[in-house]
Structure formats: C-alpha cells, structure tokens
C-alpha cells in the first residue's frame, strides 16, 4: 500500500518537472503580455498579472507590421513545404520503387545536404542572391528552404512508400493508369500520413529559420516572424510587455500545428532520427 502511494507520488513529481520545464517559459511570456508597464517595474516582481490589460497586444500590432510578418512567414513556409514535398516524393518514389543500382548512395547524397553548415551556405548564397537581385524577395528564402527540407522529406517519404504493397500500384496500372498516374492517384494518397509528417516537419523547419531570413530579407515588407520580432527593441529600450504580446501571437500557429499533429510530429522526428 505504502509502496503504491510513493510510486504514485513519484509519478506526479516526474510529471510536474517535465510539464514545468516545457511550459514555464511560454506561460511566463503569456503572463508578461498581460502586465501593464507599471506592474512590470514593481519589485519584487509579480508572478501573475494583477491588473490584466490588452494594451500590449494593441502596441504589438501598432509598433510593427505584425500581420505582414505573419503572412510572410506563412507564405515562405507553405510554399517551400509544397515544393519540397513534390520534389521529394518524386525522388522517394524512385528510391523506394525503381530498380536502382546506387539506391543507397543516392539517398545518402540527399541526406548529406543536412550535414552542410547553413552559415557556410549563407555566404555564397548571399552573393548569388545579391547578383540576381533576389535579396528582399520570397525567392531568396523559398529556394534555400526547399532544399534544406529535402533530406527529411525524402527520408520520411521513402520509408512510407516502401511500406505500400506493389500490387495496388500494379492493379492501377492494369486498369490503364500510367506509372506516374499510379504514383499520384495510388501511392501518394496511401502514404498520406507520411506526406503529412514530412510536410509538418518541413513547415516547422522553415518557420523557425532565422539566419538566412535575417541576412537576405532585411526590408520590412519581406521580414519573417523570427526577424520581425527582434525589431521591437530600440537601441536602448526593450519594451518587454509588447515583445511578449508579439511572441504570444507569433507562437499561436505553431502551437496549433503541434496540438493537432503531435503524434505525427513525434513519429516523424524519431523515425528520421533513428534511421538517419
């Protein structure tokens, strides 16, 4: 009896640590976002907003073009996700299904892309984008993000395609489908969970990227969220409540994604990790 009780207490203790570790920073930002400037300078600091206010959210929208940043992030993340899914599913089909001599080498060389340090790619890409007049455009980010997402998308899609029985595809081809028709009408829909997993990982990767976004798109009209959020601070002023409110808004899309797709995300991350 006693033993059961301590085991239960131990479980609660473990859960508390994991939950506190994961959620505390986000909750703290949420609390700060509702605090008035006066309350912020009070000492000792208050842990919960005494007098919740929405003023910080107003200034988050007024001080910087936050909706534009959000839109830029969504455009860049979604378009690079769609393009890499398309290219990766073609490559994954070839690797999973066709009679290739250097199957392993091909997959390895695509995965090797993820081993390249992004900073070393940034320097020459900066020069190339500058030469092509592509700095401050969606292209400057969509093109590199597409390639950066290829390794994980190809890896996830290949393992899903391999699990789809060949007979289904053959049946479709006997019914008059071409090989490509069978890929789009049979293989990809059956591998939908894999396509989703790869898509979410690609989306979050592009959504989080900071270095290229900072280096290539410095003009306000093309800033993505991670870069835009840094713009609230002046040279000597840090309007923390406003920054916190902006962070809260900026985190909503990704929180929704992981709330809905948490199982997919976990299986994708760990399969990529274990097999990569």
């Amino acid at each position, binding site marked *: 009896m006693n033993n059961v009780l301590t085991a239960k207490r131990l*479980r609660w203790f473990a*859960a508390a*640590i994991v*939950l506190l*570790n*994961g*959620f505390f*920073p986000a909750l*703290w*930002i949420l609390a700060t976002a509702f605090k008035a400037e006066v309350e912020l300078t009070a000492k*000792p*600091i208050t842990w919960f907003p005494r007098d919740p206010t929405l003023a910080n959210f107003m200034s988050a929208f007024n001080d910087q073009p936050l909706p534009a940043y959000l839109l830029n992030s969504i455009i860049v993340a979604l378009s690079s996700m769609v393009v890499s899914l*398309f*290219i*990766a599913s*073609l*490559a994954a*089909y*070839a690797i999973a299904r*066709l*009679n290739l001599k250097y199957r392993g080498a091909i997959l390895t*060389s695509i995965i090797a*892309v993820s081993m390249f*340090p992004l*900073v*070393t*790619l*940034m*320097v*020459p*890409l*900066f*020069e190339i984008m500058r030469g092509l007049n592509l700095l401050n455009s969606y292209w400057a980010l969509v*093109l*590199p993000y*597409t*390639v950066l997402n290829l390794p994980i998308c190809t890896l996830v899609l290949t393992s899903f395609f391999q699990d789809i029985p060949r007979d289904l595809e053959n049946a479709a081809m006997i019914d008059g489908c071409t090989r490509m028709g069978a890929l789009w009408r049979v293989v990809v829909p059956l591998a939908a969970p894999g396509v989703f997993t790869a898509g979410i990982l690609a989306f979050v990767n592009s959504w*989080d990227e*900071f270095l290229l976004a*900072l*280096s290539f798109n410095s003009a306000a009209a093309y800033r993505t*969220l*991670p870069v835009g*959020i*840094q713009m609230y601070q002046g040279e000597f002023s*840090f309007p923390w409540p406003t920054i916190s409110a902006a*962070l809260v808004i*900026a*985190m909503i899309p*990704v*929180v929704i994604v*992981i709330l809905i797709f948490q*199982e997919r*995300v*976990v299986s994708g*991350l*760990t399969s990529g*990790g*274990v097999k*990569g």
Partner: protein
Amino acid sequence: MTMNSTPTAQRSLFDRLADMDERMLAVCLLAPAFIFISIIVVYPVATLVWNSFNDVRLLTGKPARFAGIENYLLVMSDAQFWRAVRNTLIIVFVTVPGALVCGLALAMLANMPFKSRGPIRLALLLPWAMPLAFVGLIFAWFFNSEYGVINDVLRRFGMQPQIWFNSGPLTLMAICIATIWKTSSFMALILLAGLQTIPKSLYEAAEVDGASHWRQFTDITLPLLVPSMLVALIFRTLTAIQSFDIPYSMPGPGEETQTLAMYIHMNAVDYLDLGYSSALAVVMFGLSMATTFVYLKYVRAEGK
C-alpha cells in the same frame, strides 16, 4: 530468318527496352532534387571555396582580385576570430553534454507509466517547435538584471542578483542555459523513442537477479540507448558549432560573446567582405566535417 528468332531473344530485347525505360524514369524523377541541390548547395560551395582565395570586398568598389592564401593568413592572426572560436567551442562543450544529460533525465521522467501521455508529449514538443530566435528573446528577458525572473528568484533565496549581460562569462552562461533548454527536449524525444524499444523483460530479469535500479540503468538502459544517442549527438554537435540565433538575441558586452557564425554573418552581410567571410566559412566547414568524421568513425567502431 526473322521467323526463327527465339522467344528468349525477343524477351531480352523487350527487357532491355523496359530497363531503359526504368532508367530514364529514375533519371527524370531524381533530376528535380539534384538540380535544386546543385543550385543551392553544390554551386554555392564551389563559389565559397573560390572566393576564399580572392579579395572580394564589395564596399571598396574594386573588382575581385586573386589573393592566394592571404585571407587564411589573416584569419590565423585575427584575435576576434580566435575569440569567436573559443566562444563557439565553449557552447559546444557545455551544451552538447548538457542537452544529453537533461534530455536523458526528461526522457526517463516522461517514460513513467502516466495515464495520459498527451500533456507530457506537448511539454516536450513545445520547446522543439519554438523558433531559436524566440527562445533567445525569452531568455534575454528571464536574465534581465532589473525585472528578470532569474534575478528575482536569486533575491528570494538571499543571493546576489547579477547584471548578466554586462559580463562576457555570465552572458555565455545564460546563452548555454537557453540553448540546453531549447535542445534537451528534442534529445528527450529521440531518447524516449529509444527507451520504448527496450524490452521490459530485460528489467524483469534483472529484478529477479536482484540488480539495483542504478545497475539496471548503467547495464541495460545506457548501453541499449547508445545508437539513438549517437544519432542525436551528431546533429546536436553540428548545430552547436553553428550557434547563431540564441547568442545573437542575447548579446553580451561589445563583441565579447560573438560566435563563429555571428562573426561570419557580420563580415559577409554588414561589411560585405565576401573573400574574408568565405575563408572563415571554409574553416567552419572543415570543423563540421571533422566532427562528422569523428562521430562516423565512432559509430563504425560501435557497430563492430
């Protein structure tokens, strides 16, 4: 004569045509991926190496000039380069083991038999999904000297609050804590998946033999986790070498806490010195490749 040709010969011809078809199809399917990779990775890396041997300062307005190993000699005698390397190595050697230990602890805690796994999983996913640049800002706010929560806790426990970002070492410490927080949950997710593949019967057998919990941990859990740890460690080390977002969002005094990636970014984007920044980038490239080779060697040794 044509009438006499054997069916086998005909089939082999047909086979060969089918083979050709399959090979053409493979080329067509793989072409987009490799064209993109060539444009965004292979060609830029070639330009990078070429530029590192040239004097390409866009601000001077002079045309590029072949400079041999001048840039590399400059790198070797550049004090700020060595400081950036030192900061980067500190971050690597503190945050990689730190994330492994914290991630392992989180994974063990999360692996307990809870009734609902949803909240636990979310608590591990949220830090992973949060952009590094956001994490840097949030922790800069935590370590704020006046109103930050860290100094508040220090005060409550009767300790001396610190002006974190006025001191290089303290800033580096804050950067390392933020980085460990951000990266340990991804590590935990990978290790958790590894933990769940360990058969329960091993622990039951150890229990019967009277092995202590600690013995079970060191003799069953750790050795069986090594494969998933290695994979997570390779990627963690490679990203730690490139540390940029968090140190950039948590600046210390002057350029004292600049990392190698920040120094490259400054030379390329702010000073438009593409020759020098390319040489710096080649050095970082070498560092990453060396790391990968060391790990792969270890993985192979482990496999034998």
